[in-house]
């Protein structure tokens, strides 16, 4: 189950990566070029931003998953503790 949760996070991160690229090419690049920046630099900046935001998504996602796993384990421990007492 954890696999699929990680997959979802990864997929969303990928979507963010591409989305940043699209928005950058359409809106930011013309403005940057009007500021005399070279296309090469713009593309490099774009990739850095895109990767950055994607990684951010992954980090946040993994954190949420870890928290969730801990909560589940605490629940299980609580239940088996009760079972022990019931014996």
């Amino acid at each position, binding site marked *: 189950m954890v696999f699929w949760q990680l*997959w979802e996070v990864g997929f969303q991160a990928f979507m963010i990566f591409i989305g940043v690229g699209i928005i950058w090419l359409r809106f930011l690049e013309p403005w940057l070029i009007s500021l005399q920046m070279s296309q090469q630099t713009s593309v490099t900046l774009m990739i850095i931003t895109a990767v950055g935001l994607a990684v951010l998504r992954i980090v946040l996602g993994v954190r949420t998953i870890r928290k969730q796993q801990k909560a589940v384990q605490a629940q299980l421990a609580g239940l088996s503790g009760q079972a022990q007492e019931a014996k």
Partner: protein
Amino acid sequence: MLERKSTPFEILRYGIILIVLLWTVFPIVWLILTSLKPANDIMVSPPRFFFTPTLENYAYAIGKANFAMFIVNTLVVSLASTFIVVILASLAAYSFARYNVGQGNILFFILTTKMMPAIAVVLPFFLIFRDIGRTPVGEALGIGLDTRAALIISYTIFNLPFAIWLMVSFFQDISRELEESARLNGYNRLQVLQKVVLPLAAPGIAVTAIFCLIFSWNEFLFAYILTRDAARTITVGVESFFTLRGILWGPVAAAATISVVPMLIFVLVLQRYMVRGLTFGAVRG
């Protein structure tokens, strides 16, 4: 108000329903009428409602344009692809419904492929089939451009996602207890599937098959791009009456009627099941 039973309301209600029905059915009726009209009665203003029917348009269509072959092609391709789809999709849908493989992610992937426009997919398919058709394996198996096999494969791929999606809700509605008691009685999983689940899911499978058949019969783009002469289907054949001299509406109507009427009859006979199928995802799911 819409459900009150007082007479003036009832007259209004049925009146509106009648108008809606007329509007819905009339283009089809006019199509069939036009196909039976002699050419002089078609390009006429104001439109003529009374005429002496003739079969000359049908004769033209079947005679001049090799329409009989189109009909055979459409039949073969639709039936074959529907058969394959139903088998593959039942297995997969059962798996998704019972075991939830992939936690919805695989199903998500399948559904997104359903949302792609056909145009985007057609050209790569064209190239694939062209290349396969040039290999010895392809020629031996009869796969390639302008072959029925190419259409069968294409329609199978085309209909699989929809079929799986439709059947998952049907399988989910089958009570687990029945399967579990079968397993307790010693049946293995495959036998449970075969003897318990499939018979119960038969109506759902039938509905899916009906829809797939209709989609395959009515499909246009893939048939248009992937075939030329040998494997052409009815839906594309209708356009062949658009000549440089102008559109021959008589034969067009005849061809269109041939394309449309079989499915109309099919649907009217099986109407009850179709509505069930249409609403299953919506109402129960």
